[in-house]
């Protein structure tokens, strides 16, 4: 009651005289001052809120009462929820410019006032921590508005509130689903584009809480909350390396895999379980899964050490794309996120693809035979997902998926050896080449009316083949030897049967030869197809707009030319083969046609191919450079140069990006045709061709201007421009010199090795003889020693004998003396000796 009477008095004014709204508002604003009673203030706020709802009065309320409202927010809101709710609501009315165009200028003004200092934001965050529903939701809404329109400032204030992160985190724990929903909406705004807040919250346990929500709400199958929670996790991780490091250390990467039903602890040789491969998908789950796939991609792409977990995550992505019933868009995303330098062992990975049972609306699935992931990948590129049985051939998503698969293929087959090996596998074994799926698609001939699926297959086969031979001379010369079996491989409309990618028995049986022609080499077949395409393309009169059918013929023609030009570049042998197949005359007519009667792009590419033929026609043959030079002069050098350069003007060429070459149908938009199905897309070139063209068109331009006797200017497909060529020439010659020097050195070294080996042999002999000598000498020495010992012993014996004799003689002398005989004493010794000698 009090409120009504107060308001009434305020509006009526003391005297009862009619009062202008402005007076009322100023009066009410005065009442917001701290001197009045709390109940008065509350009443004034309610009145102001009512007035602010009127778009005409809103600006007055804002201009005169905003400061007062902020004071109340600062002083009363926390203690009195009944004041808090209307004051926040009034501020919200003043700031949120969405419902009223006139607020577009006022809203920001009031927001700036609110954000003059950090008080209001701090108070609002504290209010948002309250348990009761209404204050929290209205506060979160206002904070959301501020974050939306004044992001940086609000986020900065959030950071200066010490309890801010704790409050934000506590919000996520709320058991009420509605409240969680509100909080997540606030979170999405709060953490956007602010690494500090992201880190702060992540390191205080945001991941735990968010995954908790995701899991309690039922993972990717859940309704709306899981999606916002996943979005939050994604925001916390993307562009934030600190959080990624932290995340990788936790158990959450494994949780991400489990969300897709992929066992995180799967062993490398273990097959992926069926619940992962076959799931029920709806639109919401698709969105959630795409978010999860995006985050797994983030973990896989890191340059940090490749742990087992990273491998498993990469494998999960590959299997999701190649062997599951996941939505096409999710598959394309999974493949496109496999990093280029991640060499997953595709050829050894055995996977089991699935294909929908026809007419079951995707509810029943047939398991196909297991094969290597590489084969399934090639199959996917050539024949589209599920062999094109579900989606029309040129819907955007399947094309994107094939493009992503092509990128994975190119990243995987990245060495010359591998390229050559794959080309070698197509070489004839007995007479004609085995028809691998790739070759089959490549040599399919097309007749009017065109089958879009078939020409798309041929186009992708050409892209693969171009990747195999581009800049790989050995693969090019091997490709020249490919001789597909004779007989026409036509694109039959029912030709969409599943062709297993491994060529073991699954390859389509070559159709019975219609005539007994000798099989033709691949180059010749491609040239004939090109010529047929030129003939089959409906003639357009000047002024005719191209129809769908002519556009498709243009696509085929361009496809063949692109493949050929990459094949012939810098490879005189291939040029010779092409010229002998009659390729030259093909090019002349389209170039000479009036611009309006043909696709300008075809003319330009024909000119590029002609330039290539001329430049690299270095092998002796029937058609010499002089022959081509005559044609070039007749067509006009300037015209050809212009045409070669004009490729880059074409929208279909210009719009290609490194990661995406699938374009909207039709490109350019003002083309005179309409898409047949919704979301139809088309592809003309891939990035690799764009790259190839950019690095070589200048060489081709200069080539057509050069005389027939000029020497080759380009030395490699990478060389562009004269300076570069000279440089590489010089480099080449210096390298050659180095090589010859080294060869010489090697020879010398080898010789010296041989010499030293020989000398060491003689030394060995010497040593042996010396040893023998030593042995014999030792023997002699021992013998001598023995002899010496013998002598010594003999001598000793003799001495003993002598001693005996002398003692005997002394005895005899004694006896003689006794007997009276004369004996000389002195001579004793001498006599001894004498006697000795005598004896």
């Amino acid at each position, binding site marked *: 009651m009090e409120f009504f009477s107060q308001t009434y008095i305020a509006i009526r004014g003391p005297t009862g005289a009619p009062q202008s709204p402005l007076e009322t508002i100023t009066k009410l604003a005065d009442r917001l001052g701290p001197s009045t009673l709390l109940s008065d203030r509350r009443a004034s706020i309610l009145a102001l809120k009512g007035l602010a709802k009127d778009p005409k009065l809103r600006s007055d309320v804002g201009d005169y009462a905003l400061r007062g409202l902020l004071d109340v927010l600062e002083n009363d809101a926390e203690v009195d929820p009944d004041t808090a709710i209307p004051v926040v609501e009034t501020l919200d009315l003043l700031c949120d410019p969405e419902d009223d165009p006139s607020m577009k200028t006022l809203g920001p003004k009031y927001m700036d006032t609110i954000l003059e200092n950090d008080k209001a934001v701090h108070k609002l965050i504290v209010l948002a921590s309250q348990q009761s529903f209404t204050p929290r939701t209205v506060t979160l809404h206002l904070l959301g508005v501020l974050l939306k329109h004044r992001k940086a400032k609000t986020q900065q204030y959030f*950071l*200066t509130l*010490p309890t801010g*992160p*704790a409050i934000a985190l506590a919000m996520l724990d709320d058991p009420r689903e509605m409240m969680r929903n509100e909080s997540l909406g606030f979170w999405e705004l709060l953490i956007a584009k602010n*690494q*500090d807040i992201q*880190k*702060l919250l992540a*390191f*205080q346990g945001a991941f735990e809480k968010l995954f908790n929500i995701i899991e309690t709400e039922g993972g990717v199958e859940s309704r709306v909350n899981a999606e916002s929670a996943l979005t939050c996790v994604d925001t916390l991780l993307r562009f934030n390396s*600190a959080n990624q*490091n*932290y995340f990788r*250390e936790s*158990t959450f990467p*494994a949780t991400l895999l489990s969300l897709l039903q992929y066992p995180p*602890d799967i062993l490398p040789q273990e097959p992926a379980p069926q619940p992962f491969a076959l799931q029920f998908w709806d639109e919401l789950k698709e969105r959630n899964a795409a978010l999860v796939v995006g985050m797994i991609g983030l973990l896989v792409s890191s340059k940090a050490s490749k*742990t*087992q*977990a990273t491998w498993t995550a990469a494998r999960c992505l590959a299997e999701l794309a190649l062997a599951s019933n996941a939505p096409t868009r999710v598959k394309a995303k999974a493949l496109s996120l496999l990093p280029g330098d991640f060499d997953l062992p595709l050829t050894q990975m055995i996977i089991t693809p699935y294909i929908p049972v026809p007419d079951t609306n995707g509810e029943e699935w047939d398991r196909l035979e297991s094969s290597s992931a590489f084969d399934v990948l090639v199959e996917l590129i050539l024949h589209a997902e599920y062999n094109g049985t579900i989606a029309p051939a040129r819907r955007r998503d399947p094309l994107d998926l094939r493009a992503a698969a092509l990128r994975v293929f190119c990243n995987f087959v990245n060495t010359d050896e591998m390229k050559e090996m794959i080309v070698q596998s197509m070489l004839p074994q007995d007479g004609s080449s085995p028809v691998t799926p790739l070759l089959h698609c490549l040599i399919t001939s097309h007749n009017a009316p065109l089958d879009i699926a078939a020409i798309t297959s041929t186009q992708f086969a050409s892209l693969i083949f171009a990747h195999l031979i581009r800049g790989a001379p050995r693969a090019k010369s091997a490709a020249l030897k490919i001789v597909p079996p004779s007989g026409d491989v036509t694109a039959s409309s029912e030709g969409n049967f599943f062709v297993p990618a491994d060529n073991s028995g699954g390859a389509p049986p070559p159709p019975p030869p219609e005539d007994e022609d000798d099989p033709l080499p691949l180059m010749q077949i491609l040239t004939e197809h090109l010529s047929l395409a030129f003939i089959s393309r409906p003639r357009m009169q000047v002024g005719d707009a191209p129809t769908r059918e002519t556009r498709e013929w243009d696509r085929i023609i361009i496809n063949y030319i692109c493949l050929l030009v990459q094949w012939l570049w810098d490879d005189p042998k291939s040029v010779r083969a092409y010229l002998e197949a009659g390729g030259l005359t093909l090019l002349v007519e389209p170039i000479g046609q009036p611009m309006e009667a043909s696709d300008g792009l075809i003319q330009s590419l024909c000119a590029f191919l002609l330039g290539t033929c001329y430049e690299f026609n270095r092998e002796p043959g029937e058609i010499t450079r002089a022959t081509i030079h005559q044609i070039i002069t007749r067509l006009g050098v300037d015209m050809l140069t212009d045409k070669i350069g004009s490729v880059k003007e074409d929208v279909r060429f210009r719009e290609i990006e490194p990661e995406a070459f699938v374009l909207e149908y039709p490109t350019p938009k003002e083309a005179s045709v309409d898409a047949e199905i919704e979301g139809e897309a088309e592809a003309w070139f891939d990035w690799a061709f764009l790259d190839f063209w950019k690095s070589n068109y200048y060489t081709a331009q200069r080539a057509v201007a050069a005389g027939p006797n000029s020497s080759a200017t380009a030395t490699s497909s990478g060389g562009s421009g004269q300076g570069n060529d000279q440089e590489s020439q010089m480099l080449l010659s210096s390298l050659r010199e180095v090589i010859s020097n080294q060869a010489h050195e090697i020879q010398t070294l080898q010789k010296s090795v041989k010499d030293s080996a020989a000398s060491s042999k003689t030394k060995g002999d010497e040593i042996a003889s010396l040893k023998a000598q030593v042995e014999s000498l030792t023997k002699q020495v021992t013998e001598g020693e023995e002899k010496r010992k013998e002598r010594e012993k003999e001598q000793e014996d003799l001495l003993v004998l002598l001693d005996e004799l002398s003692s005997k003689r002394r005895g005899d002398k004694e006896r003689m003396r006794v007997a009276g005989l004369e004996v000389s004493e002195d001579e004793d010794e001498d006599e001894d000796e004498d006697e000795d000698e005598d004896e």
Partner: protein
Amino acid sequence: MAGVTWHYVLKFIITGDAAVGKSSLLVRLTDQRFLANPDPTLGVEFGSKLITIPEEEKVVKLQCWDTAGTESFRSITRSYYRGAAGCLLVYDVCSRQSFSNARTWLKDVRQHADPHLTCILVGNKTDLCSDDAGPAKRNREVKTEEAELWAKQEGLLFVETSARSGENVELAFEQATRDILLKIRNGVFDDDRSPGQSAKTGCCS
């Protein structure tokens, strides 16, 4: 992550004044390289490293939270102390100021972190005041003895390091880890209030 086994996961915080080399210590530990001109850490950075304590035959995973030293992040930084088992309190041996401020940091740690946390005082940048520092040589402002004495008084471990040369960096972490393992063995962390060491398992997740 199969094949990576550890017996303990220990949370470490690295704290101290701005520009004393906290992030460089972490990068030296985890990447064995020197972070030459780092930007100031915003909020927090994170790194982890497996170390082996041979005499205990234990593999320990160190989860290091490298906090921001700048004042504006001070209030935020405190919230990271929760659950830490070890703390590297870093100062710059060539900056008296950073050493005096270490007292405040220690107070902070004592106030907000687990009471049983092991704290090691780390005097960083010893390379700058060594004789072969070249033209960048600066004067040492904190004597080893003085810091050692203070550490003793406060019951801290102490080491002097150089993130540039890598000298003693691993040692600092190892010493602290040994001390924590000792405390774990003595049951200091057994009460639930101390989440200092998590995952006491032979973890293969």
